[in-house]
């Protein structure tokens, strides 16, 4: 007598593995739920709740792989999905990164448990407080714009080599932007959160209101090189991009900033005189992430060092930069062999440590004259040889004189390299959990210090506010 299966994700995984006729198979079932609120000019504009399921089948036939994903798949619809992956594998030439599937990782004890979900209930306390914040902002003559988002993804990974792994990843954030009624002044703050219990809209509003007041005195400065204090969110903006472009194979082939003239990579080279350590660690407090590799593609648009054959590979702490010295570049099992570099799979978080105990406010207090940046925006690569990127300051560049903010400065376009910034930084502050404004939607788990960077290249003045 056959047993009727449910649409429970672990049963989807088991059924797809049973159906497979490939030489080896990986099945990834992801259950996601989201809730969001968006507002402009002190009023909600859009909102939404969603539920979704994506099932990815990676079929291996010989040394070829086929990857097919479908959303909204029920257990009855699995067979066409599995056959499509097998057919894609049969039509594909041998994959360079083909390796035996990972084995021997102990099963997650909660593999058969139902997925974790979010809903609009996550905003139960936040939403009314947000409404009151709108009312206060309206009464005090500021416009608020922003977005609150919460998502939970439960990932179930099963392989024909016996792995049964599962991870629940919450991710939430709030962005709050305040403008003066004439929209000539603008301020901004963004914070990450797991569950919205630690977010106080009134406190965020007080923060942006203070910054709007700072902007009541305006100072126009020309383009040039300035001592600049980069807040943790901007350090995250720059180092996430550096991390995405740090692929070991590309460096080994001579086509990144981490390539060494004459051949090889810059691993072993000192990048900064500060004792900074940049690492990924699935267990890092506050930015925890999946302790195993989940790869739905061997050609990820953002992170080249991925391989579908590495699914389920255990992840541990990887020090990319250790005490200022480049120690590792991201590898798959395949590219570690190809480059002769140590295996260093990507994890979904990034931490920079090794600065002093000072907060950003304390670094401001210790500044004779410099610029305090709120956030960076529209960061794009200009030259891969130096990893020169361009972008703009946004929502508040403040002039610091004799340890105090004395006014707001016009915005700038900058041209700088994250690698050079690390090399030139003269001070790092206390590491804190933060959210990249530019990349936070794609890479949300970061902890960074503020950096003091002399001679930051403000290439031109940007009249936008």
């Amino acid at each position, binding site marked *: 007598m056959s047993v009727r299966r449910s649409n429970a994700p672990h049963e989807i995984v088991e059924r797809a593995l049973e159906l497979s006729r490939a030489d080896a198979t990986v099945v990834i079932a992801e259950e996601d739920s989201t809730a*969001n609120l*968006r507002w*402009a000019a002190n*009023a909600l504009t*859009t909102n*939404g709740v969603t*539920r*979704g399921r994506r099932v990815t089948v990676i079929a291996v036939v010989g040394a*070829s*792989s*086929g*990857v*097919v994903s*479908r*959303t909204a798949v029920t257990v009855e619809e699995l067979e066409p999905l599995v056959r499509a992956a097998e057919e*894609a594998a049969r*039509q*594909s030439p*041998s*994959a*360079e*990164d083909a390796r035996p599937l990972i084995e021997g990782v102990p099963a997650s004890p909660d593999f058969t448990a139902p997925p974790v979900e979010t809903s609009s209930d996550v905003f139960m306390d936040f*939403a*009314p407080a947000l*409404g*009151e914040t*709108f*009312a206060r902002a*309206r009464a005090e003559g500021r416009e608020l*714009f922003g*977005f609150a*988002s919460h998502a939970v993804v439960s990932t179930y990974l099963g392989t024909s080599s016996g792995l049964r792994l599962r991870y629940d990843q919450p991710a939430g954030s709030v962005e709050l932007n305040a*403008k003066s009624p004439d*929209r000539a002044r603008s301020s901004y703050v963004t914070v990450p959160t797991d569950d919205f219990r630690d977010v106080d809209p009134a406190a965020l509003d007080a923060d942006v209101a203070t910054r709007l007041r700072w902007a009541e005195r305006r100072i126009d400065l020309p383009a040039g090189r300035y001592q600049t204090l980069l807040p943790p969110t901007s350090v995250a903006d720059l180092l996430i991009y550096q991390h995405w472009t740090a692929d070991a194979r590309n460096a080994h*082939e001579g*086509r990144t900033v981490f*390539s*060494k003239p*004459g051949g090889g990579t810059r691993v072993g080279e000192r990048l900064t005189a500060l004792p900074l350590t940049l690492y990924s660690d699935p267990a890092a407090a506050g930015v925890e992430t999946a302790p195993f590799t989940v790869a739905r*593609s*061997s*050609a990820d648009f953002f992170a080249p060092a991925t391989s579908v054959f590495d699914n389920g590979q255990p992840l541990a702490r990887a020090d990319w930069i250790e005490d200022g010295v480049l120690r590792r570049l991201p590898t798959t099992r395949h590219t570690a062999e190809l480059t002769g570099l140590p295996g260093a799979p990507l994890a979904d978080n990034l931490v920079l440590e090794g600065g002093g105990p000072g907060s950003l406010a304390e670094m401001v207090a210790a500044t004779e004259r410099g610029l305090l940046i709120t956030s960076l*925006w*529209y960061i*794009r690569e*200009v*030259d891969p*040889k*130096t990893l020169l990127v*361009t972008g*703009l300051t*946004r929502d508040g560049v403040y002039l610091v004189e004799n340890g105090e903010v004395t006014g707001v400065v016009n915005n700038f*376009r900058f*041209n700088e390299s994250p690698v*050079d910034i690390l090399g030139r930084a003269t001070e790092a502050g206390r590491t804190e959990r933060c959210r990249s404004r530019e990349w936070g939607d794609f890479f949300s788990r970061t902890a960074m210090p503020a950096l003091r960077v002399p001679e930051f*290249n403000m*290439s031109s003045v940007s*009249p*936008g*506010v």
Partner: protein
Amino acid sequence: MPRTIDESFLSLPLRQLADAALARARALGADHADFRLERVRSATWVLRDARPAGAEDTTDTGYAVRVVHGGSWGFAAGVDMTMDGAARVAAQAVAMAKLSAKIIAAAGSDERVELAPEPAYGERTWISSYRTNPFDIPDGDKTGLLTEWSERLLAADGVSHVDARLWAVQENKFYADTAGTVTTQQRVRVLPELTATAVDTESGRFDSLRTLAPPAGRGWEYLTGTGWDWDAELAAIPELLAAKMAAPSVEAGTYDLVVDPSNLFLTIHESIGHATELDRALGYEAAFAGTSFATFDQLGTLTYGSEIMNVTGDRTVEHGLATIGWDDEGVRTQSWDLVKDGTLVGYQMDRRIARRQGFERSNGCAFADSAAHVPLQRMANVSLQPAPGGPDTEELIAGVDRGIYVVGDGSWSIDMQRYNFQFTGQRFFRIEKGRLAGQLRDVAYQATTTDFWGSMEAVGGPQTYVLGGSFMCGKAQPGQVAAVSHGCPSALFRGVNILNTTQESGR
């Protein structure tokens, strides 16, 4: 060749789910409700040095219900393909509208959602213009062609690496609303792209050239000779790459620029396309993508550029990536003027914004990239019009004493009000006394939008016009991506600021 809507999409319970959702929304008191079931199949095939480096084939299916209830929006999306499931999602959308109303009331706001009128069209079907659906071609043929192209490039002297990528999308949308419009639509688009890289290991220098073929609202025929000459482009790349590696670094300063359509499309996208989105101009994107210098009070008076500047918004052009029959609010798509003789005369808008700003009708710019996302005001195909009987590119170059001819898009960045931008490209040719005089490297041009378009002295004729575009234009929160085309001729700009990117890096 006659095309039909994919039978496997039509076999989904489209009408039943829509009826269940709309009936539930009506019963719960919604003033307006719309239902959208979407299936988006997106696949990529990637090769590295002519060997497979990854492929994926993702089909995203789901549906969404959006309501106006008590003057507020409510939105919910789901994947449960049962009538009960659809009704449940409709109830969630109403619940979200009620939550919004509470927050709006607490804020003391009197803002209410109202929609500009649009005729009810009954049942309509629309299919984009293509010959062969790329998903009807075996995967082996696709990777086979990419392999052959990669090997051609790798066989040439000086080419160290070749990266190849083909991206294909088939998008099906079913839409029904409480006014009585029911549309079923299908679009296909492709983006083939090859990048050749040269590496001088000893010096550590490297550089690359990417193909100029734009993404297109076409099918597999785009890779086999219709709409682009691949043989000619691939044959030219090795020599161009070698010249780029040997090129001198540009001297920073002020130059006249002749900008090829393969570069100018992206400048149009960033400095005109996004700047003339009315939701941005009003502040609805303020916290994320930003606002616009082209504020609503300047409609009809803002001097955007020189008098030869004429820009249209268009969601109807054949093979356009933003082309469709009806938008995600049931509005029939149109074309219209954005900039006329250098003056701002129009915006892109959706039904809510149109009503709010006193327009009679939306111009059909509401669009969502999947069922999981709410429709937002999205870019039409925004295009710079050529000059009838205008010059060709050589004639434009002939009018320059000291300048640079810019070809292909590279890096792009613009500020949050669409003033200050910086662009690079794929190839830069020095112009001396009206003639090309070899390539330059390390070039970026930087300007503010109105200065740049004000410096446009000549636009090329229709013979120089190319419909370029982007596959991945990002906007909104939660983030959405959309494909959009931009047509333009070659054009001549006087006195543009050129940076040396190596000097910018402090070296």
